[in-house]
């Protein structure tokens, strides 16, 4: 069978670290970067006699997420013990949710790149999202042949978000992970810092002959902490499974790790019974009850969601789905864009979008700056857009003004245009004078044009623009030049 006869099936489990102050079951801090074990209190290191007390802030963030994805918030959910032995899990069990999770269902809308320069829409359904605690960290560097344990991370609140196995390519999986990443930051429940492990993906991957109803046997790739690794790991895994099956082998259910250096996935040394977790309700914790009043209050505090805002950008501002999605990638970008349009006027919304996504994004990216730290304000950009709209400057000159604003050579587009004499020349007489000069100086191009070489015309336009230092209105130059040559 060839490659195209196989269908890829992917489901993702994403661990998002909730941006609370304190841990999910204790009052220890979760701030990143503390001295080892300085933020591991008696509950976190599981001293005898301690009891967990649930953090309201963690629950509230789960509610925010559930509302943002249109899920059901369980009026009653329960915590369960997931039992396994590992040194960075001092209790011998992880407190998680099993049978009754706090968030049930929900949907994430996506725009997936189709690999041909376009995009298509897709909606991924969520199975559930549940609250749980993180484990500590094992450091396997050499401590005289021993392992070092840091329990600062133990008890950090996580929301594990589980999707249905509805993604059909690594591109869809990455688009889903990116949309989810943007959403949790948008609703401010997670800082999204992937290097620090605040957003970690596990991918369940299987393949099946196209048209087959049953799923193939899946393997789970653990702990992917970048979108690039997610894509590479899935692509490698899919090919590995197809090759195995085509060679007559059978996929065995397994947990695998991705090695970024080799680009390969490999099975973890299979720990016998690793999945025999013997879940049972944690007797230390009563059921979590969430009443309607709480849900309504959280609903009232939610910001306008990216999907709604993207719809508004398309409906009210006439932006494409792609542009609207790009501009709602983060709340900061969306706010900057909204501020720009507010100052430049809705009629210029498309031009504003082009500048925010184009020159501004490129400059910020190059300077490794967040949009909140942009040297150019939304009001300044709006001022620039307004001068393009009223024909004071051409697009080419606008780039110069943009650079000048970026470099703080002036306070506003107007000030820079005045100070540097960049005002567009729209006076017909002045433009005609320039054209006459250019025609006189370039008899060869004129000759070529008359002989039927269209390219020569563009060369002449270029000469006119150059002679005017970019200030002549290009449309007028075109028109007048045509007249003179015609």
């Amino acid at each position, binding site marked *: 069978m060839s490659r195209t006869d196989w269908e890829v099936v992917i489901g993702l489990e994403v661990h998002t670290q909730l941006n609370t102050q304190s841990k999910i079951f204790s009052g220890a801090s979760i701030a990143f970067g503390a001295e080892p*074990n300085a933020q591991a209190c008696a509950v976190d290191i599981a001293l005898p006699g301690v009891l967990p007390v649930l953090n309201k802030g963690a629950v509230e963030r789960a509610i925010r997420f559930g509302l943002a994805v249109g899920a059901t918030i369980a009026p009653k959910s329960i915590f369960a013990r997931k039992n396994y032995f590992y040194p960075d899990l001092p209790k011998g069990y992880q407190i998680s949710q099993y049978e009754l999770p706090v968030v049930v269902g929900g949907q994430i809308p996506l725009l997936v790149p189709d690999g041909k320069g376009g995009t298509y829409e897709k909606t991924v359904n969520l199975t559930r999202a549940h609250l749980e605690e993180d484990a500590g960290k094992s*450091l396997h560097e050499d401590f005289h042949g021993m392992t070092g344990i840091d329990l600062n991370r133990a008890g950090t609140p996580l929301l594990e978000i589980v999707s249905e196995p509805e993604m059909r390519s690594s591109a869809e999986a990455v688009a889903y992970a990116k949309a989810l990443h943007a959403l949790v930051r948008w609703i401010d429940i997670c800082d999204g810092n992937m290097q620090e492990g605040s957003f970690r993906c596990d991918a369940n991957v299987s393949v099946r002959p196209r048209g087959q109803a049953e799923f193939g046997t899946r393997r789970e790739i653990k702990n992917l902490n970048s979108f690039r690794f997610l894509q590479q790991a899935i692509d490698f895994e899919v090919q590995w499974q197809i090759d195995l099956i085509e060679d007559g082998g059978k996929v065995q259910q397994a947990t695998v790790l991705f090695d970024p250096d080799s680009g390969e996935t490999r099975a973890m040394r299979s720990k016998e019974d690793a999945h025999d977790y013997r879940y049972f309700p944690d007797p230390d914790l009563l059921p979590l009850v969430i009443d309607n009043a709480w849900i309504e209050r959280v609903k009232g505090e939610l910001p306008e969601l990216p999907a709604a805002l993207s719809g508004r950008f398309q409906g009210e501002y006439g932006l494409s789905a792609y542009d609207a999605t790009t501009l709602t990638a983060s709340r900061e970008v969306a706010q900057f864009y909204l501020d720009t349009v507010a100052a430049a006027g809705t009629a210029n919304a498309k031009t504003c979008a082009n500048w925010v996504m184009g020159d501004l994004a490129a400059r910020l990216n190059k300077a490794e700056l967040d949009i909140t730290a942009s040297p150019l304000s939304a009001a300044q950009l709006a001022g620039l857009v307004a001068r393009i709209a009223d024909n004071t400057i051409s697009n080419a000159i606008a780039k110069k003004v943009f650079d000048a604003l970026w470099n703080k050579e002036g306070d506003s587009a107007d000030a820079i245009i005045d100070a540097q004499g960049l005002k567009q020349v729209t006076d017909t007489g002045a433009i005609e004078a320039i054209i006459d000069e250019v025609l006189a100086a370039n008899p060869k191009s004129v000759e070529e044009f008359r002989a039927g070489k269209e390219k020569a015309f563009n060369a002449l336009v270029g000469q006119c623009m150059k002679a005017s230092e970019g200030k002549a209105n290009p449309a007028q130059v075109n028109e007048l030049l045509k007249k003179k040559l015609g």
Partner: protein
Amino acid sequence: MSLSLDEVRHIAKLARLELAGGDLDATQAKLNGIFGLIEEMQAVNTDGVEPMSHPQDLAQRLREDRVAESDRRAAYQSVAPQTEAGLYLVPKVIE
């Protein structure tokens, strides 16, 4: 339902219990006694009764999200068998 000796061995292994010789048989008998009790209870008609996850019919009390703990690492590590650079040291574990 009753447990085989192999199942008892498996459960003991998961719980990191070493059951030697007669302990294994004794544990099997005790566990099967519990299963017997469960079977007896399952004969009771519980239609319409909502399952409880906790014997007390109460809701979980919640804690405000505030840092309430200070660093007591030195005290906790004074009873640890081995520490270094602030880390607890344990026999080597490698995935």
